[in-house]
């Protein structure tokens, strides 16, 4: 039996009863399309987080305050240590060879007023190198300069959203004055939009010199974060180690367990975010696969009915020379054809639904070749698994009894 004949025989058998075929295939269509949608939602979330994190700068290590431990080993709260300083940042830059740049920052939320309008926004006190490290692009004016930092200048760089909130959309704000926490600042620059972020918009933000933020706004001496840019991504792990040692030494801590800071590289963030999303994707896809199993049982049910209905035909085929294996193969091909058909329609439907989700709700989705190949193989496999038993039943029929079957 040629493979083309096998396919043709199966094809014409399947389309002999279109309604039943359509209803049975529907189960597979629903299963496959929901798997496609779930996976593309998951992968969309992963990739949007990745681009978000990457847009914050490359080869980045972030040092944040850790738990400050007292002698009784009781933590005094998460990230509450107030021991990171501008000097720490300076030491990292000068003492560790492959550190390209550092940017300490102190961020707090303040009420900001301008000409009667006001907004509550993140104010980041930082230094000039922040611009380079975090890929901040200036639209108009300029970013904080080293001079500003030295002088504790009362100047501010606004994110586009903050500018829109305070001065109206697209208005010229350079040279205007804003009041942060009751203190006048002069606007010297506006940043370019970076787009939304799951971690709070980087467009609704105000940058001021770190010295100003420490002395004038907050009245403190510590910093809330130090961003470190490494020359080469291969040196990330070594950099983490050396920074840890340096800071432990500077903070007079002998036991690394008691470190009053946390070092997180960008990769760490990406990895942990992706792993959370992956787990969720797998969970959702697993739930979706339950409908696939239900669909598979539908296929098996239909194939069982078909085998019984076509008992005489099976007898005839055996009489004219079909082997057991020919019969088994034909029914297996029929069920695989059914699930494959369901798979193709399901994939198309799944992709369309994913597009629809992105279009109507702005949620990122990403249909990958992987999920399509996966869906194809799964539908193929379901056809084999759920078609095997009916095919066996057909192959094992006694030809004489089958020919006489009423």
């Amino acid at each position, binding site marked *: 039996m040629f493979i083309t004949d096998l396919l043709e025989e199966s094809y014409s058998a399947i389309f002999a009863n279109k309604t039943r075929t359509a209803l049975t295939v529907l189960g597979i269509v629903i299963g496959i399309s929901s798997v496609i949608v779930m996976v593309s939602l998951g992968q969309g979330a992963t990739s949007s987080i990745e681009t978000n994190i990457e847009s914050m700068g490359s080869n980045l290590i972030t040092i944040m305050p850790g738990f400050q431990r007292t002698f009784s080993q009781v933590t005094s709260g998460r990230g509450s240590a107030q021991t990171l300083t501008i000097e720490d940042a300076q030491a990292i830059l000068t003492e560790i060879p492959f550190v390209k740049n550092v940017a300490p920052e102190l961020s707090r939320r303040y009420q900001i007023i301008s000409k009667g309008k006001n907004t509550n926004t993140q104010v980041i006190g930082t230094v000039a190198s922040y611009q380079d490290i975090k890929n901040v692009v200036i639209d108009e004016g300029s970013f904080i300069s080293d001079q500003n930092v030295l002088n504790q200048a009362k100047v501010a760089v606004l994110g586009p959203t903050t500018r829109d909130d305070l001065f109206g959309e697209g208005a010229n704000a350079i040279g205007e004055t804003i009041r942060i926490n009751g203190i006048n600042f002069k606007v010297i620059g506006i940043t370019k939009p970076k787009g939304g972020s799951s971690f709070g918009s980087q467009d609704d933000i105000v940058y001021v010199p770190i010295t100003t933020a420490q002395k004038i706004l907050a009245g403190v001496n510590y910093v809330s974060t130090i961003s470190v840019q490494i020359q080469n991504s291969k040196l990330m792990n070594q950099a983490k180690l050396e920074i840890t040692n340096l800071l432990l030494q500077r903070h007079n801590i002998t036991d690394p367990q008691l470190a009053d800071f946390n070092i997180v590289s960008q990769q760490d963030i990406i990895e942990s975010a992706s792993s959370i999303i992956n787990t969720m994707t797998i969970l959702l896809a697993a739930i979706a696969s339950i409908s696939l199993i239900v669909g598979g049982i539908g296929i098996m049910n239909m194939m069982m009915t078909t085998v019984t209905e076509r008992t005489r035909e099976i007898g005839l085929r*055996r009489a004219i020379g079909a082997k057991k294996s020919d019969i088994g193969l034909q029914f297996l091909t029929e069920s695989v054809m059914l699930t494959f058909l369901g798979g193709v329609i399901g994939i198309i439907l799944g992709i369309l639904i994913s597009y629809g989700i992105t279009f109507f709700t702005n949620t990122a989705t990403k249909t990958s070749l992987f999920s399509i190949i996966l869906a194809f193989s799964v539908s193929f496999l379901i056809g084999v698994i759920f078609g095997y038993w009916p095919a066996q039943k057909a192959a094992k029929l006694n030809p004489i009894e089958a020919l006489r079957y009423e």
Partner: protein
Amino acid sequence: MIEVKNITKVYKTGDFENKVLKGISFSINEGEFVAIIGPSGSGKSTLMHILGCLDTPTTGQYFFEGKDVSRFSDDELAEIRKRKIGFVFQAFNLLPRTTVLRNVMLPLIYANVSRSKREKIAKKAIIDAGLKEKHFYRLSNQLSGGEMQRVAIARSLVNNPSIILADEPTGNLDSKTGEFVMQTFEKLNKEGRTIVLITHEKYIAENAKRKITIRDGEIIEDITNGISKSVQQIKE
């Protein structure tokens, strides 16, 4: 061409043994037209299933073109059915909602005959079976009983079988169309085909040159052109 030697067939249902064939021996030569007659339940169909390699005898030997096929495997028997045997059944057994041509081509699919040849062979067989060109693309369920049976005959011809086995081919037909179908068999026999016909109606058997009568699983009469072999001769 075919020869059976002391064939028996026993069906076991639980403890009960049903001896359907009790030692049957005969041979059929090429070009013969044999009618096997006997009352209902005498074992005619059982015999035909064995002759058609659909089943194997419990004991005894069956030589098909010189080869003993009585112990052949399922796949080997399928191979013989595919190449050497044509079946015609009482119930026609056509694929429903399928064209006449496709029905007739069906055996060629399993025989791996190329697509281009199939249609030619099938069309010729349909004409040989006494149908017309206009029937080629008719659906099988839109035919009359007589036409259906001739489609089945055409289907039994396409693999150019050594022997055609027909189990009560006129059983589902009225006597007039039955006569028509019988004429088709006679014509095919004149063209050199070997035909074994099973029937329990005496007048149908009149068409055949040789008549084998079975009763209770045994041959009681074997008449060729009016000359009877004695029961003794048969037993040998």
